[in-house]
């Protein structure tokens, strides 16, 4: 794990050390980005592809990155948009309505050999998948990534008030889902 700040990494990137600096950026954020993506798409291969695409897109656009923005919220933003596009294409490809992709993901969870969850944790994952897509992203960013609402606002382009309300609704729905079993 490197100890450079984002500012230092960006300075190195623009001062002719682009390859080295970008490698450090990938090492610094790969785990967070992969985990965020994996929670949304469930499958490792899909998450792997989407994580790689996120960093490749970041590499192409990093030259135009605004110094006043935060690198990590920007990476999360790219990754989240990639996931939205992926899920949208998946729906189009199979001509299935919105909730069916989530049903497919829930089914995948149940048969996922790499999932190390007890019964309650598995229910929690299913409850999260029962949320509407954008609410699910809000819940994951707050609950798992422990992201500040202000940072989430940068990632999702939504007001802090709307994000708080969305998280509140999501938590209540999940609680009900968990209690119903």
């Amino acid at each position, binding site marked *: 794990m490197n100890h450079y700040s984002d500012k230092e990494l960006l300075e190195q990137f623009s001062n002719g050390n682009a390859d080295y600096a970008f490698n450090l950026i*990938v090492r610094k954020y790969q785990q967070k980005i992969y985990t965020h993506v994996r929670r949304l798409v469930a499958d490792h291969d899909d998450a792997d592809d989407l994580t790689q695409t996120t*960093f490749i897109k970041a590499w192409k656009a990093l030259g135009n990155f605004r110094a006043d923005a935060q690198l990590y919220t920007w990476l999360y933003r790219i990754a989240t948009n990639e996931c939205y596009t992926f899920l949208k294409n998946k729906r189009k490809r199979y001509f299935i309505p919105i909730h069916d992709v989530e049903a497919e993901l829930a089914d995948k969870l149940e048969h996922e050999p*790499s999932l190390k969850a007890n019964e309650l944790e598995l229910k929690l994952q299913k409850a999260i998948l029962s949320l509407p897509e954008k609410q699910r992203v809000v819940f994951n960013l707050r609950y*798992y990534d422990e992201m500040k609402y202000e940072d989430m606002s940068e990632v999702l382009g939504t007001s802090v008030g709307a994000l708080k309300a969305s998280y509140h609704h999501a938590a*209540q729905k999940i609680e009900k889902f968990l209690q119903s079993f």
Partner: protein
Amino acid sequence: MKDEIYNELKDKAPLLSSIEKKHLFDIPENYFDQLPSTIQQKIKQPKTNIIKTLLSGLLKPQFAVGLIVILLVGSLYMFNQHKADNQYAFVAVNVDSLNVNELSDLLDTDQLESIVPADNNADAETINYLIENYNDLSYDINNI
């Protein structure tokens, strides 16, 4: 931050807040050691590879057959289009230089009749006009 999130949940979702958060998915061994170099390799791939990939795709039998069919249909269409253009060009160029007889030879009589219906009154008017305007009509008639 952790406390803030826990406090936010503990009243409105006590069951949810009691679940221990942990990474539930297994990740292949050494995945995060290899990912940066995989990404670097993809970034460094020369752009010509895209062309190579496209070309190798086109060389696959199913694409090659499709491409041949498209080329055949396309060239047939272009040929017909060219032929039709030439026909119109021929008529357009030559109509001006034709005299009345040549033009009437070119006209399809059946088609002409359908466009200009027979009119007996018009014929009678023409004969009257000729009788009134030609002194030696018999000469003209004999010399036709």
